[in-house]
């Protein structure tokens, strides 16, 4: 496992016995998360994988402070998620790019750094943001509107927006799931490049096995009904990870192992259904 770099600012995430219950319109209760324990070391890249309905997005929203757990505790760098958000330590990348259609790419990326100034946390400056956009291959698109970009480019803007906050924790909710295979692979590479440079603790929700193995230090396997963690697999592959690694023997072994465990999780979900 590639060791997290201790000199970086990134902070650890600690989840102990987290539980989340949703009340449905018919007043029945859905246990979305059951007794989830998870430790993410500072600077680690962790993927959360599982079939739909396993609570992986719920888990991410809890870490982001967008929802409160109904039991257990969650700490981000020693703070509650809400406080971590208040200190602008978090970067959030949703499934859709969620850009503002009336702002240029550069302004879209800059807006979060301008808000909540009380947090007094220096995000990237305008020059740094321009530099980040260029690195993400968006140099020519900087002054265009989101509607003039392709889906892959918009998602890149969304990722640069999160990195522009210089976050200690990056939370990503299936950011590449709507993209075609080629775009997806290119964006995975760019994400790894940016992460290698800026470092952050990353929680990455996905339902794609190859993506999880390629990106992560650790893959958390979840199962539905009730949503819970069934396995944590360390991915012991060297970094930086390039295109050739995907075709290597070791990579395939991890994919096969993960697929097995996911099948178990999925079948279990069907049985209890």
């Amino acid at each position, binding site marked *: 496992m590639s060791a997290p770099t201790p000199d970086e600012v990134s902070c650890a995430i600690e989840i102990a016995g987290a539980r989340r219950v949703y009340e449905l319109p018919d007043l029945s209760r859905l246990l979305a998360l059951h007794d989830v324990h998870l430790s993410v070391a500072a600077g680690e890249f962790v993927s959360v994988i599982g079939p739909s309905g396993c609570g992986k997005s719920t888990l991410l*929203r809890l870490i*982001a*402070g*967008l929802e409160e757990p109904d039991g257990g505790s969650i700490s981000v760098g020693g703070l509650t998620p809400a406080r971590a*958000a*208040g200190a*602008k330590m*978090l*970067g*959030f990348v*949703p*499934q*859709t790019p*969620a*850009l*503002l*259609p*009336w702002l240029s790419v550069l302004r879209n990326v800059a*807006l*979060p750094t301008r*808000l*909540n100034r009380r*947090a007094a946390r220096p995000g990237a400056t305008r020059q740094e943001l321009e530099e980040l956009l260029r690195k993400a291959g968006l140099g020519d698109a900087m002054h265009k*509107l989101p*509607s003039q970009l392709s889906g892959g480019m918009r998602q890149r803007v969304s990722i640069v*927006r999160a990195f522009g*906050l210089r976050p200690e924790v990056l*939370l990503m909710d299936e950011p590449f799931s709507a993209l075609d295979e080629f775009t997806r692979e290119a964006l995975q590479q760019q994400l790894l490049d940016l992460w290698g440079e800026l470092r952050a603790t990353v929680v990455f929700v996905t339902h794609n096995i190859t993506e999880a193995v390629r990106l992560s230090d650790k893959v958390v396997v979840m199962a539905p009904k009730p949503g819970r963690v069934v396995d944590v697999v360390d991915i012991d592959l060297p970094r930086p990870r390039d295109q050739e690694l995907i075709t290597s023997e070791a990579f395939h072994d991890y994919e096969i192992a993960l697929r097995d465990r996911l099948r178990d999780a999925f079948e279990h979900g069907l049985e209890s259904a």
Partner: protein
Amino acid sequence: MTDRLAEQGATEHAGVLPPSTTTPSPGTVRRRLMLRRLRILHPAYWGPFVVMLLVLGLLWRMGAHRWPYLLPPLSEVGSQLTDDPGFFVHNAWVTLREALLGLGIAFVCAFVIAVVVSELPLARRAIMPVAVVLNVTPLVAIAPALVVAFGFGVVPKLVVTALICFFPILINTAVGLRSVPGPVLQVYRTVHASRWEVLRHLRAPTALPYVFASLQIVFPLSVIGAVVAELSAAGSADGLGTTIQVASGRNNLSLVWAAIFVLAIMGALLLLLVSVVQRRVLHWHESSQRLA
């Protein structure tokens, strides 16, 4: 054109792929864009409308000939307008001023209340039922009561116009303010953007297309409001509604129709104004984007 074809041929011979995008020279771009703007001069653009006008004019003529007490001859209506254009300009201005002032009052009130209603659920539950009831109450019926209350001055006209414009602006703006997509709100909540920041940077711009949709409805409505108020306050001195009231009392059918034409043109011009401003302000919005 010919040299571009020649270029293409050359690259094919060399076994190189042609570039995927080509831009004509700046001069060509400028000329073509100007031509695109001038296309409204082409008969295919204005022709259908002119034909329609001629048909309507013909039908009017036939109608006026058959039922002289229903429709005055168009020539008489025209001579009303040309004999004393100053009269119509003055009365149109009075009505327009009432309409726009009333609209302005409605806009400010509706916008502020829309913000309050979308931010405070308690206020929503208190205000919205009242607004709905107000909307379904026929304003034509309220207008005489307002004249009794406020007299024949400009006040009842402003109140009626403002009331008629208020509801469409309120509903559209309130819906617009709450139409920020969930993922966008999530992104900005994870940086703890304040309520004011969310309102200023996310909700208000999201509401803009909705606000403009309501303005499209409300600009012509404001003229209707002002005229209704003038008709109810018989005896008020000026305005096209008053003109119609007085002229119909004197069986001056051509003057009635002349005033109606002026009102129609005024409403259309207001609508045009909104559309032009809308296209400028909402250039980023789907409604302004051309296909291809």
